[in-house]
């Protein structure tokens, strides 16, 4: 979505005026002060129009300053409105989905369910949903299995399987059952459903200030009071010095000095942060969670699905002594042709790609299926009995396993892989190395995290040997092998006791306690209701690697806040040099050298500073919404960079900007 989409901008303009309501303005003390100043100068303007006084500030000056002060308030309102508008647009899409649905509620003692409106469903009710019907509310499947279209929520068009029991039992209101029949126990009252929460979150209705935002507000209010003192006391000091300072000038100085830039953009930055997460299909239940994501020190990552693809894949063929590798490859492929498991398919793919063999015509081959007893599968082709399976099972079948193959199998086990033996009749041809394949690019990602000072810990149910091998390959810092939910919980608590913040993903009900304990718990949308309620974020795509992006969004949010605060405060230097000489030059013309920007006149100098101060808010809205560019570097490098751009830049930019505006004003003849 473009930063300024016309529809959103139109709505935001109206909203900017609606936000002039003092009750809304008062929530932002910095902008409230600007508004009070604007009211004050407006009053002066009215007075001057009604009863012009000689020697006062010219009417055009008071008028122009007043107008730009109002613009300052409106621009800040606009920034917030645009940020909210982008969320609202999404909320509206979601709301359309929540059309009146009909539910078929199970009534105890009756054979047929009664038909009621979804709005009447309460927690604990049982409903029956059949193919083609819309799920009336959030809940858990207690009976049956169905394929469900969740595209309305996730944007993912491929249907997903939901079934009772296990970790894929939850369904979300608004999604559509495509096949079969399920019975669902409703888990949320109307208005509390996932969809409702999502809508209120993206609309910013339930948005509360985060701890860091509150602290930042305290700083901004403190600075505002300091500058209020500076400006108010300047009046008597001026009287002593014989300098008459008009209220318009004092208000202009005050508004330029108080941190209006960050004050005006702060809430937009916060809303935009949640919004950026939403765009990645992650819903944060609170702004606090997004902020915590930036602070995370340790990531707990499930091996399966996050670090590895989850399926073991054939990676290598090892022929036994005296066997041609082509013979092994052919046998391995033939034994796997009827094997529809991912392992089986991966063997066929490997042989096709690496040895350029195509499956022969098999004619009257008989396929032998895998069973738990034989632990082998394969095919019988005439006199040939081709088998592949567990090493000892194939050994027994073939009447002995050659020593070299046995040794190679041991090595594969040591490296964290799984060996499969292939035999043709009584002849053992060799081994297939099945391996947990680490996702592409994951190693580089972990490197980036290391640079940022975040430790990654892989959690797996594998034995320590396997875990170690995969951990080394993926480049994680540490691993937790043979992990149980209790182990995971203990690890989180241990890290937290050291003052560290922990993030994790989870989907199962047994993950719920750990998700609740972790500082950032991202629940998978496919997960159970319990998991979703325990976490403070939900990933609609159910992609565990998303955790990495969540952390980046959190960091980006904090960086944007810090950069704009620094920029705002650094701006003051130039504004002093623009306004102070202008204020005093009338009485003390000797201080002209202080007017280092060479501004045309006192009035144009003050007006230029006020205009710059207002425009900079508009100029920075895209940055506030987009966030500063995030780079995976160490803190020292990021700081150097940001200080150069926002600190030094913040000192220089207003000198150039104010001078430019002054030149324009002069060209327009307004001096």
């Amino acid at each position: 979505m473009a930063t300024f989409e016309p529809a959103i901008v139109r709505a935001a303009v109206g909203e900017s005026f609606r936000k002039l309501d003092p009750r809304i303005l008062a929530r932002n003390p910095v902008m409230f002060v600007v508004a009070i100043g604007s009211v004050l100068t407006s009053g002066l303007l009215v007075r001057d129009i009604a009863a012009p006084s000689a020697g006062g500030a010219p009417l055009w000056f008071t008028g122009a300053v007043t107008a730009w002060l109002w613009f300052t308030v409106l621009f800040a309102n606009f920034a917030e409105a645009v940020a909210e508008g982008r969320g609202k647009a999404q909320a509206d899409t979601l709301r359309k989905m929540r059309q009146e649905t009909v539910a078929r509620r199970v009534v105890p003692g009756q054979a047929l369910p009664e038909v009621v409106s979804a709005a009447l469903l309460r927690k604990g009710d049982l409903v029956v949903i059949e193919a083609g019907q819309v799920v009336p509310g959030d809940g858990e499947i207690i009976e049956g299995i169905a394929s469900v279209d969740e595209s309305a929520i996730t944007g993912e068009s491929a249907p997903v399987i939901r079934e009772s029991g296990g970790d894929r039992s939850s369904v979300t209101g608004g999604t559509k059952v495509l096949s079969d029949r399920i019975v669902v126990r409703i888990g949320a009252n109307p208005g509390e459903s996932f969809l409702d929460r999502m809508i209120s979150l993206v609309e910013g209705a339930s948005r509360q200030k985060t701890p860091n935002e509150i602290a930042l507000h305290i700083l901004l209010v403190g600075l505002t009071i300091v500058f209020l003192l500076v400006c108010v006391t300047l009046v008597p000091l001026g009287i002593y010095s014989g300098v008459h300072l008009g209220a318009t000038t004092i208000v202009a100085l005050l508004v330029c000095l108080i941190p209006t830039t960050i004050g005006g953009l702060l809430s937009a930055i916060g809303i935009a942060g949640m919004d950026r997460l939403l765009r990645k299909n992650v819903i944060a239940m609170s702004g606090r969670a997004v902020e915590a994501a930036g602070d995370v020190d340790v990531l707990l990552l499930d091996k399966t699905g996050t670090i590895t693809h989850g399926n073991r894949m054939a990676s290598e063929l090892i022929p036994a002594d005296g066997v041609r590798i082509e013979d092994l490859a052919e046998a391995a492929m033939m034994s796997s042709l009827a094997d529809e498991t991912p392992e089986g398919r991966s063997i066929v793919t490997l042989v096709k790609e690496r040895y350029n063999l195509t499956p022969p015509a098999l004619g009257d081959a008989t396929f032998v299926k895998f069973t738990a007893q034989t632990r082998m599968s394969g095919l019988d082709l005439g006199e040939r009995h081709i088998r592949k399976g567990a090493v000892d099972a194939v050994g027994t079948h073939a009447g002995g396993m050659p020593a070299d193959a046995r040794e190679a199998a041991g090595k594969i086990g040591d490296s964290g892989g799984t060996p499969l033996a292939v035999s043709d009749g009584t002849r053992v041809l060799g081994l297939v190395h099945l391996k947990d394949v680490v996702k592409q690019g994951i190693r580089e990602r972990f490197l980036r995290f290391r640079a940022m000072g975040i430790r990654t810990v892989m959690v797996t149910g594998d034995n320590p040997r396997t875990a170690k091998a995969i951990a080394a390959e993926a480049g994680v810092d540490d691993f937790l092998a043979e992990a149980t939910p209790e182990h995971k919980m203990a690890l989180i608590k241990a890290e937290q006791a050291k003052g560290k913040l922990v993030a994790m993903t989870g989907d199962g009900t047994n993950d719920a306690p750990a998700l609740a304990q972790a500082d950032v718990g991202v629940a998978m949308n496919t997960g159970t209701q319990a998991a979703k309620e325990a976490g403070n974020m939900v990933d609609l795509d159910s992609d565990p690697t998303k955790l990495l992006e969540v952390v980046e969004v959190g960091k980006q949010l904090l960086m944007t806040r810090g950069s704009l605060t620094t920029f705002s405060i650094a701006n003051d230097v130039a504004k002093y040099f623009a306004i102070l000489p202008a204020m005093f030059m009338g009485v003390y013309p000797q201080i002209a050298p202080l007017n280092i920007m060479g501004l045309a006149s006192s009035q144009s100098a003050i007006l230029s500073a006020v205009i710059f101060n207002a425009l900079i808010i508009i100029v920075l809205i895209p940055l506030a919404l987009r966030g500063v560019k995030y780079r995976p570097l160490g803190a020292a490098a990021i700081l150097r960079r940001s200080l150069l751009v926002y600190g030094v830049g913040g000192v220089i930019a207003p000198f150039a900007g104010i001078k430019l505006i002054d030149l324009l004003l002069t060209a327009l003849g307004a001096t």
Partner: protein
Amino acid sequence: MTASGWLQIAVFVLVIFALTRPLGAYLHRVFEGDRQPLPRVLGRVERGLLRLCGLRAPAEQTWVQYAVSMLVFSVLGLLVTYVIQRAQGVLPLNPQHLAGVPAPLAFNTASSFATNTNWQAYVPETTMSNLTQMAGLAWHNFTSAAVGIGVALVVARGLTRQPGPDGNRGVGNFYVDLIRGLVYVLVPMSAVVALVLVSQGVVQTLDASHAVTTLEGGKQVLALGPVASQEAIKMLGTNGGGFFNANSAHPFENPSALTNLLEMVLIFAIPAALTYTYGRMARDQRQGWVLFAAMSVLFLAGVAVCYWAEAHPNAALHDLQIASAPGNLEGKEVRFGVANSALFATVTTDASCGAVNAMHDSFTPLGGMVPMVNISLGEVVFGGVGAGLYGILVFVVLTVFIAGLMVGRTPEYLGKKIEGREMKLAMLYILVFPLIILGLTAWAAVASYGTSSLNNAGPHGLSELLYAFISGAGNNGSAFAGLNANTDWWNVVLGLTMLAGRFLMIVPALAIGGAMLRKKTVIPGPGTFPTTGWLFAALLVAVIVIVGALTFFPALSLGPVVEHFQAQHGEVM
């Protein structure tokens, strides 16, 4: 400016640099070590004094208990000093038979010394008896400095200590810190320094004033007294209250070039050393040196500007055809000259000492602005004994908060998170200065009881008003002179200014220490905001200048800045 002038400044800087480490390590041993030095001698004194206070096994206090102890102790001392001044006429050790001090002046002076300010609205040699000087005032010279160290230690402990298992470890014990500061540091060092000063010609006697016949045959009264003993702690404790009105410009207080150097070194000695002590407490010496570096940058900038400004005669005198080589010598001791006067003025206002060896009022406008800016930075350029460290630590908290977010983490310092409560306290601390300095200067500038005390009108008059409140609020105590501060209004208002500038800032500082103490420390990693190195030092300097000094830029513009440009045009108001 001369090579010899710069050389003398360089010597001073090198001496301070050399002293910082050993003295800082000694202070760490005294306050945080397991075994204090000289247990047989000083240890007995310490235990004896503690027993005298009824503290056999002193327990760690919470910050609130510490603050209450500190306030009660300070207020009691203030009251005793007030009574001594009022009653000095009937008390012993009053060889000149001086009468009791009037109430407003006694209040002003008691507040002044209890707050480590040593603003003197009176002429000491004709107002205060020897007893008042030795018991009433010198008491505060020692204790107010020790209190300052204690407060700095509380803030440092809060930032560097790990919380106890229940999250509630104490911040130290006020009486232990106070007594250790006196017994191991201030009293023995002052005793040694006093002897050195006597060897250089500083007087030390309980005799009355001495009448002498001058070479021209005229009569002159030479004021005498126990000067050397007062002088040592006046510098070491960054007090600055002189035995004589002329302060360190008086030959009996500061007789030679050597004593001049010694006195300046003594002002910076403890404040500089405390940065090293802090590094020890943080278990990372770089954390201390970065503060030292930031302070040094601000100090060198001040000294350079002041020396440059004073090395040129006042521009307004350009047409008088006087030699320009010696610079602006008006109001300076020729014994010290321009370089040592500019250096002394910078040192005494960077640290909240306030001793002077030249008239700041007679400096050129920009030269005189340097002391004003120095104090209004918040007395953090080495600063008062203890006050400099806790002051700069508040600025560090502020800096980390403003810039820390830029690395993508919520702000943390030494592994501890800085949150809303600390920000609230830091802003309360920051607000005190503009509130009292700008507020009261503005009041005085438009009220007859304010302006009637002025000797000068126009911008220079405003500088005099501003300087008085900056000096009072900053607990500096140096005077711009040119202002008759011994009126009832000035005595009361400045007395309150000094109390506010001390205690309204100490309490939030202690509270920051208390709040930080409860926080867990996270071991820093590559993602942590770096608080060492040149980048952080530069950032800290920028925040101190922008938040601290720029606040006063508008007021200064109407004072010294305008005066400077007027002088450039050959105008004098």
